[in-house]
């Protein structure tokens, strides 16, 4: 039993108890479990606790949704895929067109001899600075939302 890292004897006990609860024991294993239960009061107490929990879960079933749900299921899956492709194409298009527009604007600004050099470079610095700030704030908000222990507390 790799998950627990228990001693082999304890692992065997746990395995026997699980298989007994799920009716997967052989006659030999059942006898082995009964012997252990007779000899170890702690194990007996644990067995009773687990049996009680199993008894409660036995009558539980997953709730079924209304049958109509299945009629449109595949259509909905297909629509998701279409929307996914649509968003991907829109994003690629927006990135390419946006980059081209920025490039055109910067080259036009650099070639514009009527505007003073200092103003042209200041405008580029302003734009690049804004982009850096936006990316930085977005990245920070993303990392905070993943690790903020108070984000679920309602004001």
């Amino acid at each position, binding site marked *: 039993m790799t998950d627990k890292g228990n001693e082999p004897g304890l692992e065997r006990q746990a395995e026997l*108890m699980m298989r007994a609860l799920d009716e997967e024991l052989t006659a030999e294993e059942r006898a082995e479990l009964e012997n252990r239960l007779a000899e170890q009061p702690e194990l007996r107490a644990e067995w009773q606790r687990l049996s009680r929990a199993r008894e409660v879960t036995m*009558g539980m079933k*997953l709730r079924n949704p209304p049958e109509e749900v299945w009629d449109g299921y595949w259509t909905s899956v297909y629509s998701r895929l279409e929307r996914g492709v649509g968003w991907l194409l829109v994003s690629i298009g927006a990135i390419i067109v946006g980059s081209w527009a920025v490039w055109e604007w910067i080259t036009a600004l650099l070639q514009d001899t009527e505007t003073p050099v200092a103003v042209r470079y200041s405008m580029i610095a302003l734009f690049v600075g804004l982009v850096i700030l936006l990316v930085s704030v977005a990245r920070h908000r993303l990392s905070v939302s993943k690790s903020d222990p108070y984000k679920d507390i309602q004001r």
Partner: protein
Amino acid sequence: MAHAGVRYSDASESALMQWASGGDSAAFGELVRRNMRRGYHAALGLVGSHDDAMDLSQDAFARALNHAGRMDPDRPFYPWFYQILRRLCFNFLRDRANRRRLLDEAGGWIRHDPIVGAAPENPELRLQREDARRIIVRAMTGLPEVQREVLVLREFEGLKYGEIAELLDIPAGTVMSRLYAARRGLADALEEHD
């Protein structure tokens, strides 16, 4: 609807996977129809909410269709699909806001079947039993994902240990240790309540 004269509804799973991996989306649609209930219930057991289970299972099928070229027609479809579905469900559960909401709503995804032929319970006993079920459902929602997953596959899907091991690609011993840890968690919750 047919592929090379074979109706999709009559085709074997392997043939459908072969056609779907070649770009036949109608063949994939038939795979979805055959597996949608099981996929939905697996998601419901993991996340415990109808709307989220519907959303996640449909999302998993959409992703599976997106990667249909990677399917191996010589292997069954569901275990391959289940790996996609469980990853999505685990990511969903790792979001604390989702987890908290599910804890608040715990129990709406479970129904309780009376035991056929059993004598009617007295009201006090019935209340105690309902109380115990409520505690168990809440404790299940709070279990670590891998423990809850094994518990759901065993209790609700009724899979044998070997089948769970195969589906999750883990040793049967690990299945039992996760199940043991999960059931201890439930037993602890019941004991705390007492």
